[in-house]
């Protein structure tokens, strides 16, 4: 057999994590550099995957398959389709920036015992999350996916609860209690979701007898595996619940604001831009493929929930006083768009949704990291504590503005493409929902510009008057992301070319075709 | 006389023993009640042995006595040590650990 590229992509960061954790306490910087190098190497591997992947080839490529736990019918099966490739690339791309942005976030304040090594832990955990996320994108075995879908909670949990913003308005003690509250909330929400999914996974095994996505999907397709309607629906709900918590979909969203508010900006990015994507990705890959009928049965409700998420998230974002919470609610609104696109069951909708996952990842990363830089300068997360930053730190303000514009999906920036595709895709099948969805773009403009206006413009607040502009390291983090935002906004074709075939086959799994236009204006 | 009556008797004894365990405070007495229950069992064994006309039950009765004896040894050891350290054999006083 050939070189197990996918395994390598997932294992490399895992090894890196262990190595980083093993770096002695004194050598903090070494740990940082090690982590950064590993993440870059992983990025290289991910790029190789991207290159080796042939958009017009088979559905799952670079597949690997080994027996694992025979008794549970579990195999170690990896394989990537266009959607997975895109998301793996996104993950591998963002991690180096996250590490670089969090360069000083884990420098220990007080020294515990000599063996207490927060810095090593921080970067090791990040790499661990990367490994788990990547492998759950690659897994084509439901059980394998489930294991890492669950396991990634643990490192995330420690990242959220263990590391927070340096300065805190209520002092370190209060901060740590709030942090652990957020961490526990995150873990419990997702754990409950995961356990309910576990019940469904077991049910799936009882029905299907194995966990191989391809086998089950084929069996469903050629009718050799028949599920009772009620069974299929229950199983679907079990799976969807877990993913909806992860995504997060209204009303299961309340863990996200706390988590993002309390964790450091890089970790917040890790949550919303990387980990949460697993949820939406899983809806696309598992819910639709395993339970096509049930998916269609649930579509109306899910679309309505997605719609609520969009509007609700945006409105709450407007009402926030805390920068990070605002970003969190904005993300909730965006996830509403993604889920809407997935369940619109049109090629535009789903390609758009996939594209949205990528673009939202990049744009939120840029926006949130910049917000983090801002916060680290003033030592406060409250919007009211800022004002006139644009005057003292024009570069910071300018880049932040671009992030803002990306968030309100201004044409010419990447998010616009995906958002419009999602809306069109939804509109073609559910006009009313599509129209209401477009209200989202107005609200997005509202919360995004309000944040920009209140922090960056107006008279210069004395506290920010001495604020330094972006440093070289921070610029290195932000500039590539912004370039990428513009490039993908102007020329998204490379991504769509990879994604489209996968979406096509997903749609064929659910036996859905795009609606025909009223007038055939373009000759086929 | 119908051996079934012995069964009723044993059941009665057993119940008395159980009730004693539930209502008496003194550890020793409680333990005695348990012994009573065991002996109720013995009676049942012997009776059944008689009914079925095989020896198993009677043999088991001997085993039970031995076991009971062993229990007495262990039990008294524990209870006495408790009594010596607390100067009370009341099971209700022994409630350091709760909730």
């Amino acid at each position, binding site marked *: 057999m050939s070189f197990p590229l996918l395994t390598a992509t997932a294992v490399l960061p895992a090894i890196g994590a262990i190595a980083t954790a093993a770096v002695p306490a004194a050598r903090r910087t070494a740990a940082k550099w090690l982590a950064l190098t590993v993440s870059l190497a992983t990025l290289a591997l991910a790029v190789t995957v991207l290159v080796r992947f042939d958009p017009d080839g088979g559905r799952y490529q670079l597949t690997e398959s080994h027996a*694992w*736990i*025979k*008794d*549970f019918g579990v195999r170690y099966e990896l394989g990537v389709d266009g959607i997975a490739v895109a998301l793996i690339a996104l993950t591998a791309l963002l991690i180096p920036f996250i590490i670089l942005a969090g360069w000083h976030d884990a420098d220990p304040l007080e020294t*515990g*015992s000599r*063996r*207490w*090594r927060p810095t090593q832990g921080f970067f090791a955990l990040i790499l661990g999350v990367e490994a788990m996320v990547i492998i759950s994108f690659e897994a084509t075995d439901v059980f394998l996916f*489930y*294991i890492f879908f669950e*396991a990634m909670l*643990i490192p995330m949990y420690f990242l959220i609860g263990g590391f927070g913003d340096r300065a805190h308005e209520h002092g370190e003690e209060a901060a*740590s*209690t709030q942090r*652990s509250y957020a*961490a*526990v909330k995150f*873990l*419990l929400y997702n*754990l*409950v979701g995961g*356990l309910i999914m*576990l*019940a469904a996974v077991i*049910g799936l095994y009882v029905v299907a007898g194995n966990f191989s996505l391809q086998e089950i999907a084929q069996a469903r397709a050629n009718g050799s595996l028949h599920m009772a309607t009620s069974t299929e629906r229950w199983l679907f709900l079990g799976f969807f619940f877990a993913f909806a918590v992860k995504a997060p979909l209204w009303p299961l969203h309340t863990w996200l604001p706390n988590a993002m508010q309390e964790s450091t900006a890089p970790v917040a990015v890790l949550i919303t831009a990387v980990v949460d994507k697993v949820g939406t990705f899983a809806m696309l890959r598992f819910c639709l493929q395993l339970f096509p009928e049930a998916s269609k049965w649930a579509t109306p409700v899910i679309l309505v929930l997605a719609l609520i998420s969009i509007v609700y998230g945006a409105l709450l974002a407007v009402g926030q006083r805390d920068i990070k919470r605002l970003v969190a609610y904005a993300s909730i609104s965006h996830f509403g768009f993604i889920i809407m696109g997935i369940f619109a069951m049109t090629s535009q909708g789903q390609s758009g949704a996939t594209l949205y996952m990528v673009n939202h990842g990049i744009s939120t990363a840029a926006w949130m990291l910049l917000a983090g830089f801002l916060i680290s300068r003033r030592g406060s997360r409250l919007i009211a504590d800022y004002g006139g930053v644009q005057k003292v730190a024009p570069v910071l303000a300018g880049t932040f503005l671009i992030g803002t514009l990306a968030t309100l999906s201004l044409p010419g920036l990447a998010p616009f493409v995906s958002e419009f595709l999602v809306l069109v895709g939804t509109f073609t099948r559910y006009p009313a929902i599509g129209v209401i969805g477009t209200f989202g773009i107005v609200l997005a403009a509202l919360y995004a510009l309000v944040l920009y206006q209140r922090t960056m413009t107006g008279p210069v607040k004395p506290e920010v008057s001495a604020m330094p502009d972006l440093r070289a390291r921070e610029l290195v983090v932000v500039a590539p992301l912004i370039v990428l935002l513009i490039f993908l906004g102007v020329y998204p074709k490379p991504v769509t070319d990879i994604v489209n075939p996968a979406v096509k086959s997903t749609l064929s799994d659910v036996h859905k075709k795009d609606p025909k236009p009223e007038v055939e204006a373009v000759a086929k | 006389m119908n051996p079934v009556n012995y069964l009723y008797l044993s059941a009665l004894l*057993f119940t008395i023993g159980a009730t004693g*365990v539930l209502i008496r405070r003194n550890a020793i007495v409680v*333990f005695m009640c*348990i012994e009573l*229950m065991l002996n109720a*069992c013995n009676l*049942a*064994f012997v009776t*059944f042995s008689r*009914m*079925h006309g*095989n*020896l*198993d*039950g009677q*043999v*088991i009765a001997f*085993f039970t006595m031995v*076991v009971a004896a*062993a*229990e007495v040894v*262990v*039990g008294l050891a*524990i*209870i006495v*040590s*408790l009594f010596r*350290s*607390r100067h009370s054999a009341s099971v209700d006083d*022994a*409630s*350091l*650990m709760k909730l």
Partner: protein
Amino acid sequence: MSAAAVHSLWTTAATAAEPISKINAPKIEYGQLSPTLIVVGAAIVGVLIEAFVPRRSRYHAQVFVSAVALVAAFAAVVALAADGYGTTKAHIAAMGAIAVDGPSLFLQGTILLAGLVGLFTFAERRLDPAAHGNRVDSFAAQAASVPGSDSEKAAVKAGFTTTEVFPLLLFAVSGMLVFPSANDLLTLFVALEVFSLPLYLLCALARRKRLMSQEAAVKYFLLGAFASAFTLFGIALLYGYAGSVSYGTIARVVDGTVTNVDPALADTMGNDALLLVGGAMIVMGLLFKVGAVPFHMWTPDVYQGAPTPVTGFMAAATKVAAFGALLRLLYVVLPGLRWDWRPVMWAVAIVTMLGGAIVAITQTDIKRLLAYSSIAHAGFILAGVIATSKDGVSSVLFYLAAYSFVTIGAFAVVTLVRDAGGEATHLSKWAGLGRRSPLVAAVFAVFLLAFAGIPLTSGFAGKFAVFKAAAEGGAALLVVIGVISSAIAAFFYIRVIVLMFFSEPRPEGPTVAVPSPLTMTAIGLGVVVTLVLGIAPQYFLDLASQAGVFVR
């Protein structure tokens, strides 16, 4: 001398075909019983050591003998298994008293390993600060002396240690070895007492907090005796029903496939009350041992009061043995009654899972917390028992193996966290442990995650196996409830992790003692097994599924 033997004797006498003088000696397969015999022998040797070996060298002699015995017994088990007694050659030995088959061998192996690891924690002598220059373990200097009395002080000064714990441990292990492989009710009862009585004593032997220790022993003893009385009465009733205590015969009578029904038997057979009540009472006795709701109430108190090494051993090995016996009883003796006991067991399993998990939430003492968690786990295992399928058996076997190592490891870690008053078991003292000694905290976190059933730990594999079996057995509801209760359970495991890692360490917090290699082995073994069974459980699952067949 087994009941069946006596039976044959009686019938020959009745027919009077042959002179009474002719008693054919019972045939005992010593080889196949070797594991038990080795341990019993070693235990007796231990007693002799207590009698004849001078005090200063007793400790080493005892530890040596016990370790050798347990290892040898384990080797014997492995040999038997390798010889195919687990599968093809499985049969009933010792005149129908002992079943040598897959489950019994598997469980005996597990118990022996648990015993060995337990032995290591028993033998630990580095944790307690040396009293007057003598290294001491966590057992009372002199059990007989009154707590706080001069005699106790003297004993401590003299550096006495209760080395009797090692033979007691061995006796308990021997009883546990017999318990799951007992093939008639009498053997079952005897085995029950044989492993219970030493445990009662062991509970009373804590070096510190002796009052609590004694109280625990009293509670355990009284309630245990109470329960065994019920069991015995149940046995009596079953005997009355079937006219025999051998599993095979009872099963045949229950199925109605029995030959030569004499009038008395026909009479009692008609009376199902005997069967049902008897069966229920025996099962209740076993449920008491596994600590299932509502027979669980002794668990928290005893776990808290007993010396922590004993707690660990007890929590692990007792569960294994008791569930083994329960499985055999339900699968071999009462399968004909499945439709009667399944609903009841359903109810018990549900209340046990939920009860254990819910009450654990508000616990403030780490040992009590683990006690309740063990109750919840008993519930999970019951879900597998209820499956009444080959998968059910093997999943339970696997779960027990996985669980016992996690438990011993966890309690071993508890012994390390100490302050002036001995072990610091109050949760508040564990705050910020992760800052003080990240390694210990991390290890404990691994155990907690395994308890919580997080993937890549043995806990998850076991839970999945059990729930899968239950679901296949048509107990979907049970699975759902199990899932819910494990969600609740997750909450308090996480609470401990939060406490250890995210809360600021207290200045007057406990210190973490550096243990001897013995405890390190115990903990290390726990971690290794936890991870191996979590990541690559296939081999052990195979083992369990091969061992999943009862002989009858």
